[in-house]
């Protein structure tokens, strides 16, 4: 299936990627080629076939809900670009009004 430039722009926005016009054109071509290659899967009859999401099926693994030590706050924040008041700091996402 051939993707349009609009498709590429929509995917990029969903993935929070900012692409240049040149990248848009390049990914339009390359992703279309990969998706076309994947069309070989359409020749299979998959009626009644269950999906496999993990190679080794496991049930939910539960543990006792008991307190355990966690990382010290300075370790958790160490790699952050900006912190304030022992928290990660980001730009405002809501209008102040």
């Amino acid at each position, binding site marked *: 299936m051939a993707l349009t430039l609009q498709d590429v722009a929509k995917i990029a926005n969903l993935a929070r*990627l900012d*692409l240049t016009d040149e990248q848009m054109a390049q990914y339009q071509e390359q*992703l279309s080629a990969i998706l076309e290659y994947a069309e070989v899967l359409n020749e299979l009859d998959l009626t009644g076939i269950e*999906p496999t999401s993990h190679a*080794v099926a496991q049930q939910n693994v539960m543990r006792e809900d008991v307190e355990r030590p966690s990382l010290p706050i300075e370790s958790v924040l160490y790699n952050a670009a900006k912190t304030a008041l022992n928290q990660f700091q980001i730009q405002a996402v809501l209008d102040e009004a």
Partner: protein
Amino acid sequence: MDLTKLTLTELRDTLRSGETTSVAATEAMLDRIVEVDNDIKSYLTITDELALEQAQAADKRREQGESSPLLGVPIAVKDIISTIGVQTTAGSKILEGFVPPYDAFVVQQLKEAGAVILGKTNTDEFAMGSSTENSAYVVTRNPWDQTRVPGGSSGGSAAAVSAQMAYAALGTDTGGSVRQPASFCGVVGLRPTYGRVSRWGVIAFASSLDQVGPFGRTVADTTALFQVVAGHDPRDSTSLNVPVPDYEAALTGDIKGLRVGVPKEYFIEGIDSEVETAVRIAIAQLESLGAEIVEISLPHTQYALPVYYLIAPAEASANLARYDGTRFGPRAEGKDMIDSVKKTRALFGPEVIRRIMLGTYALSAGYYDEYYGRALKVRTLIKNDFITAFEKVDVIATPTSPTTAFKIGAKTDDPLSMYLADIFTLSLNLSASCGVSLPCGFDNKGLPIGLQLIGNTLQEETILNTAFAYEQSTSWHQQIALNAQTSG
């Protein structure tokens, strides 16, 4: 004694007999890195001071009577595996400067065993690639021919072991990223069964496929490292809570009566004729060692590549959503939050962007069933192929990759042709099998060829012993890369 020439198991014996020390072996490795890694570029970070401290501690432990198998043995770790206090980049600019606050499970295991960590090895960005050329930092060169790639994504680890810059190394294998570089670099590489080794602390690429695997110059070396990292870890909910066998004890070299399956779908048009010949001779060698050769079919093999390139990018697009500049990595400031995130994510390289885009599309509303949903169903068929095959055989023998190492730059403009380098390795990642690649010859350019042995779920003992039997009856593993440059 030239310590760099020793295999891991030879070093272990030498350490145990007191003929050398961990400090001496570590210094020999660090000198070797200085000598050849300017050319090969297998390491992103060399932790020389930490390594010497660990070596001194190991020598002290030995003086106090300890003798555990990896005590004092210098090892390299792929830079996608978290190491406390040591920068871990996953080969990406988006993690430049990231210093993990904890060790991955496998690193904890290494440290507990007394191993020495020499440094962090180069990788394709987030392990996405088959040549290590997608690293945002440096291009690693194949020790057998420096104009060629070492394979990937664990190309740094494979090259380091091949060029005697580590006695063994850890990589990760999501679609073949341990076995394919092992094949290209003429070393042994194991992809364990999914869940055999904890993924805790390993930077995620495709969570249903990722698995840590060891490299060594010999089967015994690879097994010794695997022994230490295998095991249950409650912090990875997909970690299998089953006992770890004594893998080294399983290396008897006896494969009489072993049933070896040869799948016709792996000997196809496009495979290099020298690779095919070498692998067929290796299979005949297994027969002469007492194995029974059985022709089998894995009928859905041709669908594995498109299935993999829908599932792995889909999982990657979700896993890599966390790189938004908030908790780790550099942050670019834009006009608002979303703009900042987009500007920060411009630090991803082209292959990572390609896979995030592909995965986002495969999971997006209106296309989920057509792409991701369909891929999961075909994954069932591929998994069933292996289940059926392992009712008839104990081991499946194939080439590891259709070609030997290709030239640097040869496939960078054509993503699909790069993906084909993994065509023989990625099926088993979609199933619950395990696989090992080991040297089985050289082509007319002197480049190593790899034999892949695939085993059923948790049958690592079987494939390692088969590999061991083959290795003991051949001399490929005794050929050493960069031999001419080694000081005597």
